[in-house]
């Protein structure tokens, strides 16, 4: 029994990381109505940028964020304004195919530069540190930190959206970019900022990913799928739904793995398809349909 509780607990903690993957995707979709197929590859790219910073300067992975966050944010802004803004319009095909093409380009560039070898961001003994909750139940300090960070970040992003001038500009532009311009909002700039914000989260998620698991240039797409599943299961109502979606995915994967290691990823996908079958709008749908 206690093993199952443990599986669920680990799943919840993993879910925090998935929610972090998903929040960036949700921001990009929420503001630009763009589903970014490159999202998983951005996460892996951030992990590799961190690897370069760590190896180049000798700082730890967390300190490397001082460099990784601005690098990814600027990259996101430039990419949005230079490449993605021109694809936005009533036709869904161009943004989809352009991000799909970018995904292949990034994967193969990473492969060319870093080879297919597995990499890891190392944080030393800290990685294995854990807290005993009961005699048989322990949580890793690092997974706990990831989870708490995810919750704090989601809270902060939600606050940005709800309470700041930038957040109002995000929502207004998402509603109606033409009228937003009449308010003096430059929608192209706002889209760039939204992508930059999403990539700040991607930077953090990438470093967490790199510390928690091995990564190589090919693991991006599966992260995209996890992020996507968390977003859809949560519904598009709020980022808290996305957090719930991430947790459900994490728990499903851990329970699957407990049954048979081969079922880990499959169980997550199946949980997603079940939610899609019974609650097509997710668990916490938005009240307004658009």
């Amino acid at each position: 029994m206690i093993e199952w509780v443990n599986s669920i607990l680990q799943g919840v903690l993993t879910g925090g990381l998935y929610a972090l993957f998903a929040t960036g995707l949700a921001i990009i979709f929420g503001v630009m109505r763009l589903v970014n197929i490159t999202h998983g590859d951005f996460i892996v790219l951030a992990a590799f940028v961190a690897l370069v910073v760590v190896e180049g300067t000798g700082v730890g992975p967390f300190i490397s964020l001082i460099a990784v966050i601005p690098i990814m944010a600027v990259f996101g802004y430039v990419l949005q304004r230079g490449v993605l803004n021109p694809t936005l319009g009533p036709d869904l095909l161009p943004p989809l195919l352009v991000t799909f093409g970018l995904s292949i380009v990034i994967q193969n560039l990473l492969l060319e530069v870093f080879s297919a070898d597995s990499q890891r961001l190392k944080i030393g003994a800290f990685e294995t540190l854990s807290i005993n909750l009961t005699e048989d139940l322990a949580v890793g300090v690092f997974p706990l930190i990831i989870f708490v960070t995810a919750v704090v970040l989601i809270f902060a992003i939600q606050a940005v959206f709800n309470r700041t001038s930038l957040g109002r500009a995000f929502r207004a532009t998402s509603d109606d970019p033409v009228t937003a311009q009449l308010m003096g909002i430059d929608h192209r700039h706002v889209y760039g900022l939204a992508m930059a914000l999403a990539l700040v989260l991607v930077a953090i998620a990438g470093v967490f990913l790199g510390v928690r698991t091995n990564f190589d240039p090919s693991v991006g797409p599966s992260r995209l799928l996890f992020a996507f599943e968390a977003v859809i299961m949560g519904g598009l109502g709020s980022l808290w739904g996305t957090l719930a979606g991430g947790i459900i995915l994490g728990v499903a994967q851990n329970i699957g793995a407990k049954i048979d290691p081969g079922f880990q990823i499959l169980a997550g996908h199946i949980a997603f398809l079940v939610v899609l079958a019974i609650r097509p709008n997710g668990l916490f749908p938005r009240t307004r349909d658009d």
Partner: protein
Amino acid sequence: MIEATAQGRYSVIRSTRASRGGAVAGIVLLLFLAAAPWWADRATMRLLVEIFYILALAQMWNLLAGYAGLVSVGQQAFVGLGGYMLFALAIFTPVGAAWSIPLAGLIGAVVSLPVAFLVFRLRGHYFAIGTWVVAEVFLLGFAQIQTLGGGSGISLPVSVVRDIAASRSGRDAVIYLVALAVVICIIAIVYGLLRSRHGLALTAIRDSEEASASLGVDNFRAKLMIYIFVAFGTTAIGALIFLTKLRISPAAAFDINWTTTVIFIVVIGGIGTIEGPIIGTLIFFLLREPLAQFGTWYLILLGLVAVVIMLKAPQGIWGLVAERWDLRFFPVQRRLRFEPPD
């Protein structure tokens, strides 16, 4: 169909000079290709087989995305399913390899129904990623089936291979002709479909979903029919592909590269036309022969070209050509010709 008005006569034109000239050239080309077993060497025939099945896959994806607006990045689900159905039918039933191809297609069509039930709940871009999830489920699911080799895969039994034809050159010829037949059938069906009343409805949906709905075109039904038909075609092509490979594993069968390649081909060639995928396939193979040695750089180049085309010339290379010289080899649209009064 001719309408006379006070100002002159309009007639609806469906063929073009290019299409009539093209038809003659096409028949000559077909005879030439059908005779390949008598003039081509083994390597050439293998290359042609690959060109045929990639072209057939591209036509299927183009019908799905370019006409029905269903941008799937998970068609490898059906490619892999077709491969596994070929193996399952050949190993566990007395059905011969050749018959397994259409049979696999039918299985694919049946399987596509519950898949559509799920992924059609996702709108727009999310549909694309949903189809990808389904393909991953297929991959992970087939990896669990031990009788089909589990995660490591399985080879086609020698007895089944012998059944196709006794000699190696005989097998090559059979597989080549089957591949040629499959690609011709696929193009003929797509062409026929687009010229039919349904094709007109599809084009209307592609051009404006709202407007077509207001004209009484049942978008959902039309899209579902296309989805099922494309599943049929893609699964059959998948069976063909793995007939040429003689070995299957989940990673190879459900490889996203089946879809990636086809997307690049269609985007570069020109989405939403029959000619586009043909041009795209030719370009893909022409570039691949000299560039394959650069490996990943070739994929990077293809990705960049696709991105640039989508940004600068979304109608693709064929779109540019057709616009410049008003060429159409597969005229699916109806055009009005105005004849001034005498």
